[in-house]
């Protein structure tokens, strides 16, 4: 059986569990005596709880307890204790801490009862009186209150201008000033956030949590409830999507833990779909772009500014305006990033945070500039192509964007494009073509892994990372199996368990590069040990052999020079009397090497839309994208990651909009009927190509990451196609039928 697995289109190793319903998610763990908690959400956006009357609810037989700010025991004193690995600067929200209401749908009580139905019923019987204060949730009206978007946060690059924007802008021949807007969005993974907390006899906790980092959940619980980490076990083998929603511990974890500790019983708390709109969103941005170019299209000056929203208690920052310097060759770039603090919950990283929105505005503006210059939009990108990150003055560790443009343009048939807007029709449909570039960061973070090889040739590898649908289980298995020359069936990957070695949060497209490298290293260690042992066998052909002299293949250690010289791995174990070989390792990024480069993934996206001239209905009919994401570990699961990203792009362009009712300060369309997510009928034909180039700067295994790049650029390509179809520029997402109608008919 062949044992080279990396890069192959392998089926997911957890597929069987997922298609049979045996994969267990956080709300699906049972324990004797399990009780149910239902969260009550605040009805106002700002003020105080004057009174909370739980009397009627507690009368109901089977209702065990109602936790409110009035009866929650004193917990950690300092804000700091509530910080998690993904906290932005500020003071984190503390559930049930006081009578103060800081945002609408703030959790204000937890009703615990014998059954879910009872808890839900009792929650309706709790009466709350509020003292209402005036709230402000309107970003657009509050720009004069904006503060600088800065502060320390992992992955955040504070805006940094270069050159002399004003002068260059004034002096340039062709100028463009434009403004873009997009609504708020919510992650809405299909699985709602849930935690099941089991109170153990020794006072410890076993917690099944929906999270992108079991160690983050453990840290949070440990700090707030003052329980030693080693007494807390957080388990999360399957996560029903997250897209960033699981980067921070959400309040159901706090609630379920509180109740389990107080009642000394297993407690499950699952949020409702409306409550999925109560803890963090992709923040609205209002973005202004000023572009100046010479008549040949060379960019002379770029100014990118963004106003975004955050809560009163934390300053959520993301990289919105940092992309022009990485995408284009321009000496004069101004970057401005401001925040307005509003009465809402802190925004939360959502797939390609900052990039999805910043690049949307930038690439839409570039399209506007292309038309102004009477230039092919693709040619404008190529004219300003850069092999260097202008901000950092560093070359890219790898960049095959040019090839991405070429491949995607060719597959799409871009050369057939009629440059004239509103020039192509198909019946009563206007047909439009648009394109855009995409970019995201490529990073390796520190990660640890352990591995155990048994005498029968079975291998187990583990790291406390997550698989939120990303394929982590599968790539860990592939890497481990290939490194030791084993069939994948003999390898078991473990993750989502806080007793496993350290891994950082599963997010930002870093996991394959980081955990993948740790898995590779730990298996290399086992390989070295095996070779050493093999050398000690009587008459061994591998006496004194070095790793370079052999390969691990087909369950054997094989002489590189001579295939016929080999020893089966199980033979080595047997002859050397080894029950198991266990190793642990840490994979640290090579910061010195990495710092010499700017490290990114890139993409080229081409879109076709058809718009009914009479009805304004918009249908994306084709997306062609080419991706530069380094080495692809699994052609099948990586393809799915990009596919998902593109679907997100379509959804972002045409559908998603968390609508704030400013009167109540509440996201009013907080369910899946009113908050539109792309469904099967919305899907275009999607064509994906990977332009592979191994990048050994980003990670020793050549990987750059595929989680976000599929999304970035898609909304711009679609918006640009809408312009090409109609001749009208819609500068606000989502591009809905009403906007298209008014624009189309305004001709």
């Amino acid at each position, binding site marked *: 059986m062949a044992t080279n697995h990396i890069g192959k289109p392998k*089926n997911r190793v957890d597929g*069987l569990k997922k298609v049979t319903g*045996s994969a267990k998610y956080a709300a*699906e763990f049972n324990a004797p005596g399990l009780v149910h908690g239902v969260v009550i959400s605040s009805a106002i956006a700002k003020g105080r709880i004057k009174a909370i009357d739980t009397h009627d609810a507690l009368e109901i037989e089977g209702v065990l307890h109602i936790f409110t700010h009035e009866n929650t025991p004193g917990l950690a004193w300092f804000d700091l204790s509530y910080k998690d690995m993904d906290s932005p600067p500020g003071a984190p929200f503390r559930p049930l801490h006081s009578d103060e209401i800081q945002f609408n749908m703030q959790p204000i009580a937890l009703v615990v009862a014998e059954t879910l139905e009872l808890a839900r019923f009792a929650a309706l*019987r709790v009466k709350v009186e509020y003292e209402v204060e005036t709230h402000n949730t309107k970003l657009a009206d509050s720009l004069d209150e904006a503060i600088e978007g800065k502060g320390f946060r992992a992955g955040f690059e504070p805006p940094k201008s270069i050159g002399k924007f004003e002068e260059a802008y004034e002096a340039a021949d062709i100028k463009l000033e434009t403004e873009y807007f997009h609504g708020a969005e919510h992650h809405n993974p299909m699985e709602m956030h849930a935690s099941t907390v089991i109170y153990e006899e020794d006072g410890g906790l076993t917690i099944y949590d929906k999270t992108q980092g079991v160690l983050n959940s453990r840290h949070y619980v440990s700090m707030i409830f003052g329980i030693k980490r080693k007494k807390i076990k957080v388990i999360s083998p399957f996560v029903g999507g997250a897209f960033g929603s699981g980067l921070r511990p959400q309040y159901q974890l706090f609630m379920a833990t509180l109740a389990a500790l107080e009642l000394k019983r297993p407690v499950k708390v*699952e949020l409702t*779909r409306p409550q999925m709109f109560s803890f963090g969103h992709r923040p609205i941005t209002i973005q202004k772009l000023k572009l100046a170019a010479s008549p040949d299209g060379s960019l002379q000056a770029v100014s990118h500014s963004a106003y975004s929203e955050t809560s009163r208690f934390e300053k959520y920052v993301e990289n919105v305006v940092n992309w022009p310097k990485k995408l284009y060759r321009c000496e004069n770039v101004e970057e401005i990033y401001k925040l307005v603090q509003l009465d809402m919950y802190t925004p939360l990283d959502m797939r390609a945070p900052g990039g999805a929105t910043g690049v949307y505005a930038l690439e839409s503006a570039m399209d506007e500039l292309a038309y102004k210059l009477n230039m092919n939009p693709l040619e404008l990108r190529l004219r300003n192509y850069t092999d260097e990150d202008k901000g950092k003055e560093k070359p890219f560790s790898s960049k095959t964007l040019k090839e991405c443009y070429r491949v995607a343009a060719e597959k799409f048939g871009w050369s057939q494009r009629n440059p004239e807007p509103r020039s192509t029709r198909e019946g009563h449909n206007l047909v439009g073509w648009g394109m855009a570039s995409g970019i995201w960061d490529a990073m390796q973070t520190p990660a640890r892994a352990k591995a155990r090889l048994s005498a029968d040739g079975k291998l187990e590898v583990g790291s406390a990372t997550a698989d939120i649908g990303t394929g982590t289980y599968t790539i860990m298995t592939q890497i481990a199996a290939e490194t030791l020359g084993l069939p994948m069936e003999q390898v078991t990957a473990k993750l989502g368990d806080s007793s496993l070695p350290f891994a950082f949060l599963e997010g930002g497209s870093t996991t394959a590069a980081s955990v993948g490298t740790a898995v590779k290293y730990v298996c290399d260690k086992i390989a070295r040990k095996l070779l050493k042992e093999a050398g000690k066998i009587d008459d061994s052909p591998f006496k004194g052999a070095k790793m370079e002299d052999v390969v691990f293949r087909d369950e054997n250690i094989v002489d590189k020079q001579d295939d016929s010289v080999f020893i089966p791995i199980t033979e080595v174990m047997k002859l050397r009397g080894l029950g198991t070989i266990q190793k642990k390792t840490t994979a640290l990024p090579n910061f010195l090497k990495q710092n010499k480069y700017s490290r990114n993934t890139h993409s080229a996206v081409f879109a076709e839309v058809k718009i009914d001239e009479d009805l304004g209905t918009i249908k994306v009919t084709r997306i062609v994208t080419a991706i530069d994401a380094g080495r692809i570990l699994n052609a099948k699961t990586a393809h799915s990651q990009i596919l998902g990203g593109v679907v997100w792009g379509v959804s972002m362009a045409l559908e998603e909009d968390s609508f704030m009712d400013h009167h109540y300060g509440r996201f009013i369309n907080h*369910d899946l009927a009113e908050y539109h*997510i792309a469904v099967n009928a919305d899907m275009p034909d999607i064509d994906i190509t990977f332009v592979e180039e191994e990048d050994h700067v980003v990670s020793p295994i050549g990987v750059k990451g595929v989680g976000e790049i599929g999304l970035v650029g898609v909304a711009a390509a679609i918006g640009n196609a809408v312009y090409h179809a109609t001749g009208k520029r819609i500068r606000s997402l989502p591009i809905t039928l009403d906007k298209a109608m008014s624009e189309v008919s305004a001709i």
Partner: protein
Amino acid sequence: MRNQPHETIEDVRSDAIEKHHISLTINGTSYNLEVEPWTSVLDLLREHLNLTGTKKGCDHGQCGACTILLEGKRINSCLTLAIMHDGAEITTIEGLANNDGLHPVQQAFIEHDAFQCGYCTPGQICSTIGLIHEGKAKTLDDIRDLMSGNICRCGAYNNIVKVVQEALENHKNQTP
């Protein structure tokens, strides 16, 4: 109005929790159950019978994650109460594989990587099987329309469609 009890708490409560006897056949096993009128089929499966393969994504009939086969027809199990189905036959994701292995649709989901996180998957699979038996889907557009009650936030739609096309093809070949 939900904040104004229409009856006294005692009334509502005693109505609600008075248990009723029903029998159900779930995945070939018969169950004699005492259920409360307010328990949905979905909660009966997940919370009371520990059959957690069927998923809850909204509890409001808006996502399709809870799709099961009731008398062979696909339904949203969150939108119907258990007591309404005395004597019914239910198939959930746990009941599709048999001793010969996976249902062909389950296998096809794996081969086509028609999922990522897997949370919508049991619903998508039951929906696919239900759709085939409805016999309405003739074209690609039909498939896309008729599968649009099942949201996949991971965006595996185009792979799901491949599975459905394949399954329809197989079905046609088997039923001349």
